[in-house]
């Protein structure tokens, strides 16, 4: 299936877009989404372990399953405040 992932800050700058489409298997979880993202942008590889993800605006774990219509976002380490 095809999922859409929102990107922010340095990750968005590297990918050059605020939103990317990734092809993942129909039973994909966040670890599969992460792998697909790194596969598309190998420059992100050193940061892979530091990237969190959110599904439908809630922090997800590596095992969180995703569906094609989920709102998925890649959340690099935050620095608000």
């Amino acid at each position, binding site marked *: 299936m095809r999922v859409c992932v*929102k990107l*922010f*800050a*340095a*990750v968005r*700058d*590297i990918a050059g877009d605020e939103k990317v489409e990734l092809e993942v298997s129909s039973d994909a979880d966040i670890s599969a989404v992460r792998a697909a993202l790194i596969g598309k942008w190998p*420059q*992100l590889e*050193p*940061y892979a372990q*530091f990237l969190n993800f*959110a599904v439908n*605006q*809630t*922090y997800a774990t590596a095992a969180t399953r995703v569906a094609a219509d989920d709102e998925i*976002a890649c*959340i*690099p*380490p*935050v*620095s*608000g*405040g």
Partner: protein
Amino acid sequence: MASLTHETIDLQSLYDMVATPTAGAIVTFSGVTRELTQGRQTESLDYEAYAEMALAKLTELEQIAKERWPIEKCAVVHRLGHLEIGEASVVVAASSAHREAAFLAAKWLIDTLKEEAPIWKRENWSDGSTEWVHPGLPTGDAP
């Protein structure tokens, strides 16, 4: 009463949001753009957020604070976009009958939003370079 804004944050309006006849104590915290960060000169900052989630997260933190301490009200506003030195990037306010709770809740709110809210800042250094701040990311030729 969480919000995100591209405008200058007005401290008095945050105070007014949490003031109530049962509150004897009102604590505010303002996070302000500093000129020097670890010896480097900051020219300005830009903040961006995953806005919908950031707003939901700030609202959730306000709820948790109200459950954890006997506070009357609390409010958080985070600035987005371009900030000059000395401008507030975030203001937290909490009111309570007695002062202890307002201090603890305000401190917890700023500590926790800095860890959990999907908001990022970009340092615009005085040498013309810019850098997204991502604590913990490998440095050097970091993105």
